[in-house]
């Protein structure tokens, strides 16, 4: 019985440690990678997985050691895995829109990052001056 308990504890502890290490690595990537596009990788998948692990640990903890089966945290996990790629996608979209510098070693030269000759309009021209109906 005690062994089983220890095993369970071990599983939970594993998920916890693994999750937090992943999350740390994800944030580390965010902190130290060279350009935005590279920084994006860490948080968008590694951190997500890390938190996923912690959520699994929580499920395990409450199901195994506390009040019986509970899968509530699964919902958060699923939610994170659905939304994280979308956030990453939108972020890189805006980065491309802003033509953020990429690391010089990056191969490929997408049109999004090429300088175009669009005239830059001044910041604030009062255009919407007509009254609403």
């Amino acid at each position, binding site marked *: 019985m005690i062994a089983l308990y220890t095993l369970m504890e071990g599983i939970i502890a594993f998920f916890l440690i693994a999750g937090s290490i992943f999350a740390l690595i994800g944030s580390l990537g965010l902190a130290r990678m060279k350009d935005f596009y590279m920084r994006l990788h860490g948080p968008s998948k590694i951190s997500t997985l890390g938190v996923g692990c912690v959520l699994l640990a929580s499920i395990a903890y409450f199901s195994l050691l506390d009040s019986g089966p509970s899968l509530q945290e699964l919902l958060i996990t699923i939610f994170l895995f*659905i939304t994280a790629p979308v956030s990453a*996608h*939108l972020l890189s*979209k805006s980065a491309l829109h802003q033509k953020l510098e990429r690391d010089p070693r990056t191969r490929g030269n997408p049109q999004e990052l090429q300088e175009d000759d669009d005239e830059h309009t001044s910041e*604030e021209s009062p*255009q919407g*001056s007509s009254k*609403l109906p």
Partner: protein
Amino acid sequence: MSLLLIVLLPLLGSLLPLLGSNQRRHQCALLTAAMPLIALLVTLRETPGVLAGEVPRLAFSWVPALGLDLALRLDGLSLLFVLLILGIGLLIILYARHYLAEADNMPRFYAYLMLFMTSMLGIVMADNLILLWMFWELTSLSSFLLIGFWSHQSAPRKGARMALAVTGMGGLALLAGFILIGQIVGSFDMQTVLDSRDVILADPRYLPALLLVLLGAFTKSAQFPFQFWLPQAMAAPTPVSAFLHSATMVKAGVFLLARLHPALAGSQEWLYLVSLTGLVTMLYGAYFALTKLDLKAILAYSTVSHLGLITMLFGFNSQMALVAGLFHILNHATFKAALFMTAGIVDHECGTRDIRKLKGLWRYMPMTTALATITAASMAGFPLLNGFLSKEMMLTESLETPLLGGLAWLIPALATVASILSAAYALRFVRNTFFDGKPRDLKKTPHEAPFLLRLPVLVLAIVCVVVGLFPALTATGLLTAATDAAMTMPAPEPHLSIWHGFNLPLLMSTIALLGGLLVYVLRQHLFAFHRQFASRDSLAIFENAVQRLVRFTQWAIDTLENGSLQRYMLWVVISALVVAGMSLMGIETLKGELATQEASPLIIVGAVITCFAGLATAFLHRRRLISLIMLSVVGLMASLIFARFSAPDLALTQLAVEVVTVILLMLALFFLPQKTPKESSASRIVRDVLLAAGFGGVVASLNYALLTRPLNSISDFFLENSVPGGGGHNVVNVILVDFRGFDTLGEITVLCIAGIGIYKLLNRLRLFMPSSDSEGRPWSPDRYPMILASVSQSLLPMALLVSVFIFLRGHNAPGGGFIAGLVTAVALILMYIAHGVEWAQQRLSFQYQPIAVAGVAIAALTGVGSWAFGYPFLTSSFGHFHIPLIGDMELATALLFDLGVYLTVVGATLMILANLGKVTTSHRPSKQKEKA
């Protein structure tokens, strides 16, 4: 009751002329005259009794808190004045009927006149100091209307304003004086006051009270140095001048001296203040009367002089002087009113009152000339006329006054000088107007005025003569009664007779008349002397002073209220710092008795992050989006702090609100500049940093002090009663929807109003729409990124489900209507973000305002529902219901209340965000729309 009639009839009379029309002037005048006439009859009916020593009084309690009673009296003094006011008033009504031009609005004139008459009667009959003051101020107000009657001209307007300002000031001083007297005596009842002379004179407050009362009296009676308003008030129509500035209003001041004589007189202060003021005024007025060119100005300054004379007499602290003063009031009223009317007739007939143009009018208007001569002679103190009598009495009294001690001879000497001048200007008035050659440059040929215009003058002239000839017969009774009322002890019988034998006063009178003649003959030398001094128009000086005052106030206000919100905020902050700082300085130790808990590393990290983000929000504020991101960090940290310290509901709410706030701020930021220009000076920044630091320090100190002190609070009750009394395990939620549901009702009302108010604000908003971002990049053409659109549609059902979950759990676990509402709203907003307003609007068939309002309605009606069971508003009820198949179910009315909260939050939030989004979108220039 008849006393009330005397006052109220003219008041009623002020309404009657308004019934008449400007066209039917006769009728109008008759209507107006009716009421004072009846009042006069009533008075006459009372007269015998009063003369016999009765004092009819009447009192109704009005405002006990103020010491104000509606109390009237008709003693001898009152009677004298009532007769004057009503008698001359009636003559004025008659005179004005023929004097006013067709263009003048006669009903209005009469209405003002009667209002004035009422207030005058009130003054002289008031048996209560406060009541007297009320009527006193009313005379200022009604005279303001009368002086400014010819409002299309500048002079009357300014003259009226000046008169009001001066007499108004005096009135306010008078009130202060009266209150002091009332406090000394303990009552405002006139008789009590009059009987309390010893108490009053012994009180240290006597002098201030006296000064204040005299200020009131002197301003009203145009005593030096307040005389300047009276000549300017001559811009009024002549009937007004005749009534107000000869017979009545200016007499209110001297009346007051007489009225309060028993209570205030007898002291050295009184003697010097009153009689010297009177003496100076008498001389001043007489001198200027001689130098004026306008008939009415001459009369005005003459009035000033005569009022000075009366004041001086009242100041002498002598019984006979009092008699003389009262007698002169009567005499002056008659001859001066007549003279004013004469001046009016001349003006009426010749179109001018300039004494240089008028000459030899006796040819054209012999009757008027005769009347003017008689009355002017009376003014000059010519024997056999009433003016002579009182003037001689004055000279007699001037000989007997103890004033000035060793220099006491100065008084009679100066009085004689004044009499000389008086005789001179009277002579000048008559001779230069009616005799001395032929008129020049008159606009029209003068002829005798209509009889009815002359009739009042005639009546007054007759009075002058009759009283002058038979003083004992006509005036003694009245004067005795009046003096009686104005004295502490029974008054001596005045011996009014024409002949007192050869004595010093007679000599002085003779000197005065002869001297007057001499001065008149030599007047050009005097005028040459007078011309050395620059003439200063008191009106211009006054207007100038007022304008400078106004400009100063404008400068002061503009300097103080410079339109800078920064300054206004600064004041609030400084005020808060001062009061809180001062209070904190009074605390011995900030730290209370409670042991502090140790901070875990995680908490330290959290605190550091929070502080860092907070500071960054402030210091990066010029880059607004970054500042906003930092604000988000603070918001997130705040909710984590709430979570850490056992406040899950707060954490949830803070989180949801923070996200919505940031979205809102970003929506707004689209139209505002993306960056704040660098504009604060270094000193400004230093100042603000110091202030902010001070404020933060105070907040932190307060917070620390509170955290380290034990608290004995009412919260235990909520913890104990949440489950048994409120039917919920989540105490915070039970407080929100039950214990303090009323707060929540107010809170959702606020939210609902905010939504509606914002809808109002967004209405017809003109916006500056940037076509590119702050770096000058045109916006991305991809309006609705596909992947976002695709994912968000699948998140909506999930979010709705979660909100139902949070809503239902709220009563027993963290959650509740508010958070559920925000989750729903945020999910719907995501739809707007992903697909746009148009798309979302098509799919949401309901409007938001009704939803938000319905939420409030549901919450309120849930509360009203408890009435049906005889409980107060918002009493909750809950119960466990066993439903087959489902099992035990707990239902609480609080849930219904929470539903209201939910709906309000959804409705209001969407109203704010969706409407804002809509406004911006419909302004997006079309060429920008789909560029790619």
